[in-house]
């Protein structure tokens, strides 16, 4: 039995006011997600991630195809008993406080008063809202709302949890907390299915990812396989290089970036990075580092999503703004 199984899931939205043109948001998505572990649904804006989740949760209906959650057809909403869902940009009742709202959600699951009270307390603690018991949800910041949304998704201690962009609107600390929360859920044996376009989050969290682009499945694989594909280039960093060395670097490297005193370059496999390194050392260059550039999820993503041709680059928090290409 799969946690999630979709077969040829397709969704057309009608767009346009006068003449209704169908817009294919999802195109024959067939996917199987094992139980346990973290599954990431990746894709650029408008790829169809939210659409997929909404179909699985029965908020919109597929134009074609079928899907099962935990072995039950999505049309059978009794499976929702075992499921949690955080919608994209969640919105809640203005006038309730977080405990009141969670209490209402717990009541829907038929939990008794004591069980509700305990569960709500634990969850508020877990998502870091314990100190906002009295504040109505309308006064919550975006990140606080997101946390309340995560709490309500977990109210029934679900087996399978769908999170649509769980990190959106969170500060760095919040992202860290949510990341730990998701990892904790995996430890408990839950299946987490989340959508994101933030590759860093996916890379640190996911066991498996699917890449969606314009409604089509463009890639599917285990994170290990994706990251351990063959090394394709190397990065060399020099300190205080002479102009002559910079010229040499420019002639050999696929990209050269200058940051302060340092020059960072990427040498493609074809140019034989070890030979290049030797040349630099011969000319008395001060080499700060030499690294193999591991394939990142970003490379895989870019490959699949087919962005404008892009040299394999070192993944870094600061994109090479001043990058020069020979």
């Amino acid at each position, binding site marked *: 039995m799969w946690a999630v199984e979709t077969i040829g899931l397709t969704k057309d939205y009608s767009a346009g006011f006068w003449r209704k043109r169908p817009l294919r948001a999802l195109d024959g998505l067939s996917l199987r997600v094992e139980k346990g572990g973290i599954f990431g649904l990746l894709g650029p804006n408008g790829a169809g991630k939210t659409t997929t989740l909404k179909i699985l949760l029965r908020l919109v209906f597929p134009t074609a195809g079928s899907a099962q959650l935990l072995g039950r057809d999505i049309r059978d*909403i009794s499976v929702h008993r075992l499921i949690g869902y955080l919608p994209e940009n969640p919105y809640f009742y203005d006038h309730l406080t977080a405990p009141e709202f969670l209490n209402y959600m717990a009541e829907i699951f038929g939990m008794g008063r004591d069980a509700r009270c305990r569960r709500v307390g634990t969850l508020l603690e877990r998502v870091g809202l314990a100190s906002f018991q009295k504040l109505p949800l309308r006064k919550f910041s975006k990140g606080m709302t997101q946390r309340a949304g995560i709490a309500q998704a977990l109210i029934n201690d679900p087996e399978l949890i769908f999170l649509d962009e769980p990190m959106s609107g969170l500060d760095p600390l919040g992202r860290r907390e949510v990341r730990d929360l998701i990892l904790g859920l995996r430890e408990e044996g839950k299946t987490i299915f989340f959508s994101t376009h933030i590759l860093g989050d996916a890379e640190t969290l996911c066991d498996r990812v699917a890449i969606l682009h314009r409604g089509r499945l463009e890639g599917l694989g285990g994170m290990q396989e994706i990251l351990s594909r063959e090394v394709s280039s190397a990065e060399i960093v020099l300190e205080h290089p002479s102009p002559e060395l910079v010229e040499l670097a420019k002639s050999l490297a696929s990209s050269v970036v200058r940051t302060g005193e340092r020059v960072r370059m990427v040498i493609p496999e074809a140019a034989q990075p070890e030979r290049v390194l030797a040349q630099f050392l011969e000319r008395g260059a001060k080499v700060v580092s030499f690294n193999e550039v591991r394939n990142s999820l970003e490379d895989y993503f870019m490959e699949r999503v087919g962005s404008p041709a892009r040299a394999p680059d070192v993944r870094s928090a600061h994109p090479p703004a001043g990058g020069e290409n020979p």
Partner: protein
Amino acid sequence: MNSISRVATIAVHSFKESVREKVLYNLVGFALLLIAAAILFGSISVGIQKTILINLGLSSISVFGLLMAIFIGVGLVAKEIERRTLYNILSKPVARAEFIVGKYLGLLVTLVINTAIMALGFYAALYYVTRQFVRADAIALEAIYLILLQFAIVVGVAIFFSCISTPVLSAVFTFCVYVIGNYLADIRWFGRENGSVLMEKLTHALYFLLPNFANFQATSLAAHGMRIPGYLLVSDSLYALLYVTVLVSAAVLAFEEREFK
């Protein structure tokens, strides 16, 4: 947890939600104010003071209750769709039918309570004017019951429109249905006299399709101390029950098909 307790949970929640709507208090306040004003109006002409009070009192209960019914009927369903608070409920094991029925019941309770408050105000005014209660004063209560039946239908209409359109349109449509529903007999008469076959068919269809609110008007009977016939109370109750069942079922059917994009 069974269906009934889920419906009850949703009903209780939507009741609690509507209780927090400040507009309701304003409307109740206005109604009470008008009832108080009726005392002043009445005191100008001593003989018909009571008649005027009953007339004005029941009319204001009717008008303000109607505004409440439209306001909360549309506000608490259409807004929930528009603001997507619904996503949280529907991703729980809640059938769409349970949601609609729960909402309807919750709003009905709200209306009953608010109408009861207005009725209390009305009877207080009546006591202030006459300094006594006589048996005939119970007729006003029957008239209020008929008014409440109208509200039950109006909330059903409001919920039905909420399921198929936007909040503003729902409010407008519901109001139109109420107004037309009060003049159905006239409209049918107009259709007959008009001479056009199409017009006659159209008005005939309207007559049978829309709720006939004129059947529920008992204010002037009550004002003149005339008894409301028992068969009217029974038939109106059955009519309202039937109508509400049809409306809520239609709302559920529309809601089942609705996508939340």
